[in-house]
């Protein structure tokens, strides 16, 4: 990393794709609905269930409406990228694989302080939890490492290793940049800010000021109803899509500040019920399918 120019944002992604492709992962493309985290993609959530092995890697754009800072905060974004890897069953050398992937993007563990710091991961909206670590590089959390134990309220019969890289953070680290908008995007003068600053400003206004809360509420109720109906019909992934939509609508409502503390728990419970139903439908389908 010393002599050569540090990786630009898109090359970092390409290197990770290359690395995980060589390790046997299917390289998938981003899922086409708003997600709060790479974990929520059906490529992770649904595939973590049941007894079938799976190995996939993909970039996932993530939306966290309340993290919008109008483009003014150097570290926080309401839209950012995660690099997500799911390995099922958990490989013996899961930790080593992650460290090798760091080497592949120019982080030398003998020069940097890589640490596995306890993190009991939990996502109550999809009834998932696992044990693992935040992985630190020189005091910065650059990845999340989770051994899934439960998804959709259902214990994982074959636990998987989930690796999530915060791509912007990692790129900022590799490039030695302190403001996310200064990231070198393509190695030819385009910055992250050139691509995303305007969107961050506009979405922050949308998330905090403009989004029509009455409409969001209606959409939430529609998505909830639809999701349940589809789960009952046994079409797992369409049902799960509606659950994801409900989850994102809830996040928007939350950012607009119209959900009180006591209501919050009830909304999370409603989304979790949808996730559980979709996961049940997925497992039921797995048992009857030929795959």
């Amino acid at each position: 990393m010393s002599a050569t120019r540090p990786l630009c944002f898109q090359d970092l992604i390409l290197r990770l794709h290359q690395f995980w492709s060589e390790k046997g992962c299917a390289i998938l493309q981003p899922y086409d609905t708003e997600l709060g985290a790479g974990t929520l993609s059906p490529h992770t959530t649904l595939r973590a269930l049941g007894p079938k092995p799976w190995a996939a890697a993909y970039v996932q754009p993530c939306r966290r409406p309340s993290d919008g800072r109008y483009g003014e905060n150097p570290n926080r974004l309401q839209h950012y990228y995660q690099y997500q890897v799911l390995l099922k069953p958990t490989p013996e050398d899961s930790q080593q694989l992650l460290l090798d992937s760091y080497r592949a993007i120019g982080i030398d563990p003998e020069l940097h302080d890589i640490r596995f710091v306890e993190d009991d991961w939990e996502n109550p909206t999809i009834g998932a939890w696992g044990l693992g670590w935040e992985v630190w590089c020189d005091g910065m959390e650059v990845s999340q490492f989770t051994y899934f134990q439960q998804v959709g309220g259902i214990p994982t019969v074959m636990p998987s290793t989930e690796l999530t890289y915060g791509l912007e953070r990692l790129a900022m680290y590799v490039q030695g940049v302190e403001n996310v908008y200064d990231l070198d995007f393509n190695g030819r003068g385009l910055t992250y800010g050139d691509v995303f600053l305007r969107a961050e400003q506009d979405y922050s206004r949308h998330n905090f000021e403009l989004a029509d809360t009455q409409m969001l509420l209606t959409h939430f109720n529609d998505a909830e109803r639809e999701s349940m109906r589809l789960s009952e019909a046994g079409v797992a992934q369409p049902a799960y899509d509606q659950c994801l939509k409900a989850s994102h609508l809830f996040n928007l409502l939350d950012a607009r500040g119209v959900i009180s503390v006591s209501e919050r728990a009830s909304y999370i419970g409603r989304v979790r019920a949808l996730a559980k139903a979709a996961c049940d439908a997925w497992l039921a389908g797995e048992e009857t399918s030929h795959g």
Partner: protein
Amino acid sequence: MAELFLELFSEEIPSGMQARAAEDLGSLLTKALDGLNPRDLRTFFGARRIAAVLNIDAEIPARSVSERGPREGAPEKALEGFTRKHGVTPADLTLENGFWVLNKSLDPVSAESRVSEAVPDLLWKFPWPKSMRWGAGSNFTWVRPLRRIACLLDGHVVPFPLARDGDDAHGLKASNLSEGHRFLAPGAFEILSASQWQDELETRSVIVDMDSRRDMVRTGVARLAEQHGITVVQDDGLVDEVCGLVEYPVPLLGKIDAAFMDLPAEVMQVSMRINQRYFALRNPDGKAAPYFAFIGNLPFKDGGKLTTAGNERVLRARFADARHFWDLDRKTKLADRVPALTVVTFHAKLGTQAERAERISKLAGTVAQAMGLDGVQIAQAEGAGLLAKADLTTGMVGEFPELQGVMGGYYAAHDGEDEAVSRAVAEHYLPRGQSDDTAKAPVSVAVALADRLDLLAGFFAIGELPSGSGDPYALRRAALGIIRTIRDNGLRLDLTALFAQAANGRTGDELAKLPDFMAERLRVQLRSEGERHDVLAAILTHGLDGDLVRLLARTSALSDMIQTEDGRNLLAAAKRAANILRIEDKKDGPHTGAPDPELYTQDEERALATGLDQAVPAIETALKEERFTDAMQAIATLRPTLDHFFEAVTVNAPEPEVRANRLKLLSRFRATTALIADFGQIEG
């Protein structure tokens, strides 16, 4: 004798679980190997391993045990069952003391055999607070994936598989292999003995002894600080935590960007500690120094230059985040945040934080008044009470809940609130724990007490009392906070009246238990300071005196008195009187009312009556004026008179009216001692 060595090598164990796990490993091994006389136990723990070393006998010697069977003459069936259970015939049994007994001789069991049986069992049942499954199908769980088991008896592997009941347990089995530092010495090495293992680990950049790691951290950080003429903020919890994160601690020093040095010191410290596990440093004048110390996990090839730069950059990002909240929060006045508390639930049955702030405000005024503060201060207490919880809606407290109060204080000061008000907002959480100071500024004291009075009265009113083990709302701590604040400030308050105010018109059986709860906390506290339990029982026999200062003065006066000779004798006399009365009252009591002077037949009776006549008003006056030592003195002077009385007078006189009169006199004496305390509670 043989040295047993057991190491469980895994992926990174949460720092906070390591010490307990090593302790559990030691005690479970000791218990499981009971027959082998386990001794000289040493345990080790670190980021990737827990281990135990102990000495055990080479074998459990041959023994005989006897099992008692059915009684002689018991039904045939019972005997049959007993012999079947043990796989013997009735001919193998002997008759002893009317019972059929089986005497079995057991063969010796080798240490190796016992260990290979006990250890897998122990590992399957190991009590991790949270454990996980991994791999393709085993149900063996561990805190994180377990990678190696090393088990040696005097240097030889004790072979056992972890597999059981068709579960392959990830193919794990005992070996003689361990691993050193993840990055500096990857790969396995052979263990020959516990001491060679420890040395070899050190060669391979793992300091496996926790005390050595602690020492490296403490002295290393102190040395770095000294080079810059600064000192480290002592934080034993943080030392322990980082020592569980690193296998080879290397202390390093980073610089804090000058642009952030105007952030409150508490904000910097909490952000560094919670988010980054960094140590805060102080200039000689006590102010925050522009450095932080952190602990790397290896001696870096470049002396730590790159990682220091990286850590500095991370901290800049953290502080930029903190600055964001600091700047944003100050744009809204604390006073303007109070309405926002209407959407913050305090407790479903106790309303919102806004309602609580109202209650605290009102109570703080009442307490301030009771403390004798002036009108300005009373208004300040009410104002601070209202603002006390407003910082819960700030971004900074949302990010770092441990800064509640502290931030409110800063923001109130920024808003230009009176110094006493902002200070009270900051200090009303004091004392936060056992070792924390109590509030001293009068307005802070009023709000601190009001906060806790409301908390206690509220939760008692809805029946949420602490149970034996559970105290989810920290009511014990709140009670102790009241006791300590009142004592430290020598406040003359009527707690009973204040509890009534805090009850706010609510009543109920549970609420009525509050004074007793306080009395119990006081008892526990004074006991821990070495006060005698019987003295406390004597003082608290009628429950809590609402004035704690008075109660404490009384306690110490009584404590002093019973250590004097007069006091001890008086006590003996009081007990004697009480005993006589208890027995005689059962026959034809109670014997109350004034004794009749006409019926005294002996001088000793008259002397005691006169003594009491003189002592009672003296005691009452002294008690009223809270001269407790004088009150004790007044009663103690009765001692010779009492001694003479008991020597010369037979209470149970043959003449019924003389006897009754003497009992009345004793009863009067008992009533006099009761003015002071319940002497019957005091031992010896």
